[in-house]
């Protein structure tokens, strides 16, 4: 297990470094510097600005400084647009919000999805099963940016039950979490259902039933663990999808999370903030994939490492 962990780490760390270097090079190669404005700056001012942000150093030195600052101190440097703010401040402001509804959505998607999938598989070909299949097909074509306006239309404008934007208390969490989690919930339900159906035909389940175990014990103790393996390998892509979807939530529900900072910086060409967010999200993704891989190896006895 330790060797396997080390092996996985040996892939994860270069991936992260690669991501940092590639996004740095992309930024560097982009036409138009951060100080390209409508009115051209006097050369001396431009030179001073470049010196302040270290842009007059040779490229290799800039890369090394940037990577060093990011790796050792999570320091993404100053913002190019908001002269008095650092990227870290901008990220720190939005990140707790993103983390809150992100984790909530993830929990909802996994718990509801797995429960729905199990229920559908156990009651195979019942009305519940058909409903679950219908919901998961429907949710496939209802990604977060479609769910969000529909939810606001129904629950805010027509019914007036829930606030359609802002971030002031738990009632503001509901719509963002539902919008973000629905499509993943549906995918998890579909995956759980089909793998559960497959597991239920296997010999060890028949044995468990034959020795007279009550059905709920057969399902929870004997069938659930192998049935969850495909779900676990789906969690990585689901995590990426949720991180991406958080941008939509931040924009549409004005939750003030990190996605808003990302889109604003994209519209302002504030490369420093864009890179900071991209690298942070990349790091989270890589870390999460690592955890998923380790969990998979730990649960599945067939994996030899």
């Amino acid at each position, binding site marked *: 297990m330790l060797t396997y962990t080390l092996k996985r780490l040996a*892939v*994860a760390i*270069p*991936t992260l470094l*690669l*991501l940092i270097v590639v*996004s740095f090079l*992309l*930024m560097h*190669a*982009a*036409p138009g510097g951060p100080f390209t404005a409508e009115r051209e700056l006097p050369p001396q001012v431009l030179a001073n600005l470049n010196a302040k942000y270290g842009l007059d150093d040779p490229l290799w030195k800039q890369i090394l400084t940037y990577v060093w600052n990011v790796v050792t101190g999570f320091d993404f440097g100053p913002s190019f647009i908001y002269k008095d703010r650092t990227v870290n401040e901008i990220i720190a402001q939005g990140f707790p919000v993103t983390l809150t509804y992100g984790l909530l959505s993830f929990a909802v998607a996994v718990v509801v999805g797995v429960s729905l999938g199990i229920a559908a598989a156990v009651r195979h070909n019942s009305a519940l099963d058909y409903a679950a299949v219908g919901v998961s*097909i429907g949710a*496939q*074509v*209802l*990604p977060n*940016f*479609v769910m*969000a*306006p*529909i939810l*606001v*239309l129904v629950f805010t*404008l027509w019914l007036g039950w829930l606030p359609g934007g802002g971030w002031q208390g738990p009632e503001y969490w509901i719509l963002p979490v539902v919008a973000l989690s629905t499509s993943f919930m549906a995918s998890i339900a579909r995956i759980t259902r089909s793998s559960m159906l497959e597991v239920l035909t296997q010999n060890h389940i028949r044995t468990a039933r034959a020795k007279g175990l009550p059905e709920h014990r057969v399902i929870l103790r004997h069938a659930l663990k192998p049935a969850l393996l495909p779900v676990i390998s789906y969690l990585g892509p689901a995590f*990426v999808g949720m*991180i*991406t979807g958080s*941008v*939509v939530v931040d*924009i*549409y529900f004005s939750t003030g999370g990190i996605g808003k900072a*990302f*889109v604003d910086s*994209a*519209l302002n*060409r504030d*490369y420093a903030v*864009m*890179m900071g*967010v*991209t690298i942070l*999200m*990349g790091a989270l*993704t*890589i870390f999460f*994939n690592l955890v998923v891989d380790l969990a998979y190896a730990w649960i599945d006895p067939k994996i030899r490492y």
Partner: protein
Amino acid sequence: MVSTAEQTTATDVAPKKGRSLWADARRRFLRNKAAMLGLAILVFVALFAVFGGLLAQWSNEELDYNVMGQAAQLGGPSLENGHYFGTDDLGRDLFARTVQGTQISLAVGVIGALIACVVGTVYGATAGYLGGRIDSVMMRLVDIFMAVPYMFVLILLLVMYGRSITILFIGVGLISWMEMARIVRGQTLSLKGRDFVEAAQATGVSTPVIIARHIVPNLLGVIAVYATLLVPLMILTESFISFLGLGVQEPMTSLGALISEGAGTIAYGTTWQLGFPLLFFVLTLFGFFFVGDGLRDALDPKDR
């Protein structure tokens, strides 16, 4: 199992007539009700995208000054003033814009999927056929790429190199070839030990030609299936970016951009601005998913 049983009875009835793999797949596809429904939906959406412009009484850039600024009261869908789907607050005809949006979304989906297919097939077939160390390095690279939250990188690219539609097409395609490469590699591994490949090797055919002439044609079924399933994902990606206002730019539009606009204005009571683009978006995705699933059932060797 079912299909083999059917095959035997069918050959009993008409013993002289054999059926090719493709004819067999076509028969299975035509029998799949969901896939046929999906195909019908897609034909409808495609007809709408291609010929919808002929029905429109307004162009997509024209402003209807009678409606401008009063979309909530006057801009609703109506046959009398020729705005079948209503207008937006600027008085632009939503029907014409939905036609254009559907065109752009379909184009991004198909072209993006094509790019992803070509890159993924060439990469996967090369890695699988060469095997050994080259294979493991190439596939490890794919693992690394797949761990990157590509949407952020794509947005980074779009912002840095100008938000042109060409970059959108290419970028959307280039970020999704990895899954394709994995599938193609797996299939190539099982193909390369076959007799016809060995025969080609023995007669001295060069490696690129073997890949192009002997490996890839045998992968076409799998490629077709995953290409069809890639199209809706491409459309989703493009719509996502357009929803954020980072995709296609006015006056050009896509379904995602229209949904975004409609979503922003629902508070003023112009529900049609969300409803019609959303309807075509959902129809298109449904169509592709159903057809893709049907093709997979008909062609995927795993299920035989």
